[in-house]
């Protein structure tokens, strides 16, 4: 009995040592830059940058294949952060990608035919409804990415700009000029 335990423990120890050595010897460096870029992006997963989500866009930036100014939800602020992180000059947002006023999609319930196409397009699952049932957008979940507009066959979805009132007004992000610290 004791010898059985010793043998199994011995095998375990030797294998563990080999694997531990191998994990150091064959370590693969995951690119830490991708994680940092991904942390700056707004995670709306809207795909307006032309990549299928924020992480692929971050990977493309890290590889140098994509510009930093392709992210409308991040706005000028996001571009500035990316530029700081990567040590390049900030650029204005790409063509056709100017920051729009924050908006939510609204479905005109009289025209909706319940085709579920917009539900499939929504990246954040903010649209509820079922086949041949009227759909509704949960305004608090909507990121305003406009991906539901093109698939709608009856064009019953439009964007509504969120007006500033007591409920939606937020403090502006403070913008400081950078000062060199001695």
């Amino acid at each position, binding site marked *: 009995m004791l010898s059985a335990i010793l*043998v199994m423990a011995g*095998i*375990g120890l030797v294998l563990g040592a080999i*694997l531990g050595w*191998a994990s150091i010897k*064959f*370590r*693969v460096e995951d690119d830490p830059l991708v994680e940092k870029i991904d942390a700056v992006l707004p995670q709306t997963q809207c795909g307006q940058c032309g990549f299928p989500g924020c992480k692929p866009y971050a990977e493309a930036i890290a590889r140098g294949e994509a510009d930093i100014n392709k992210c409308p939800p991040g706005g000028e602020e996001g571009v500035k952060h990316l530029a700081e992180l990567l040590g390049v000059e900030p650029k204005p947002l790409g063509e056709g990608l100017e920051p729009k006023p924050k908006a939510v999609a609204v479905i005109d319930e009289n025209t909706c035919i319940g085709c579920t196409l917009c539900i499939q397009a929504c990246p954040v699952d903010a649209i509820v409804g079922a086949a041949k049932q009227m759909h509704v957008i949960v305004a608090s979940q909507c990121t305003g990415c406009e991906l539901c507009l093109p698939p709608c066959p009856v064009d019953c979805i439009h964007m509504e700009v969120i007006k500033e009132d007591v409920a939606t007004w937020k403090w502006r992000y403070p913008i400081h000029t950078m000062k060199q610290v001695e």
Partner: protein
Amino acid sequence: MENYLLILIATVFVNNIVMSKILGLCPFMGVSRKLETAIGMGAATTFVLTLASGTSYLIDTYLLGHDLAYLRTLSFIVVIAGIVGFTEMFIKKTSPVLFRVLGIYLPLITTNCAVLGIPLLNVMEQHNFMESLFFGMGGALGFTLVLVLFAAMRERLEAAEVPKPFKGTSIAMITAGLMSLAFMGFAGLIK
């Protein structure tokens, strides 16, 4: 030398691990959709299986002996798991593309019954060290051979006009059965 050659031929063709022993069917059906994956999987399995049959022979002879023979299956599984873990790190470092292509099937080599079956058969047939190595390598080469052949056939089947009830996995199963029948033809090759 002739002995080793005979073992190789016997394990690759006559006693093919998949076709006549019916071991290792999971990767045989799972990784045979594309030719490149099949070749990669075959290479990884060959590496693991050759190493595993060598080490398990050493463990069985020098560590377990007759007294601890009941630990055989347990210790073999542990050793195989360790070797697969090592192979995974090695492939991740040397060929990230192959690593991504093999995906989940790479760690699944651990539970590939052919990889456990061959060391156990080695013990049962009382092979010595070199015979065990060649038996393991032959078994793995046979596995690779049928996997690659099968993948090539399945790639053609994708384009073929298969009647609707036979589409997909069912025609693959039938193909595997026919292949197994064809491998029976090697049965009289070595007396």
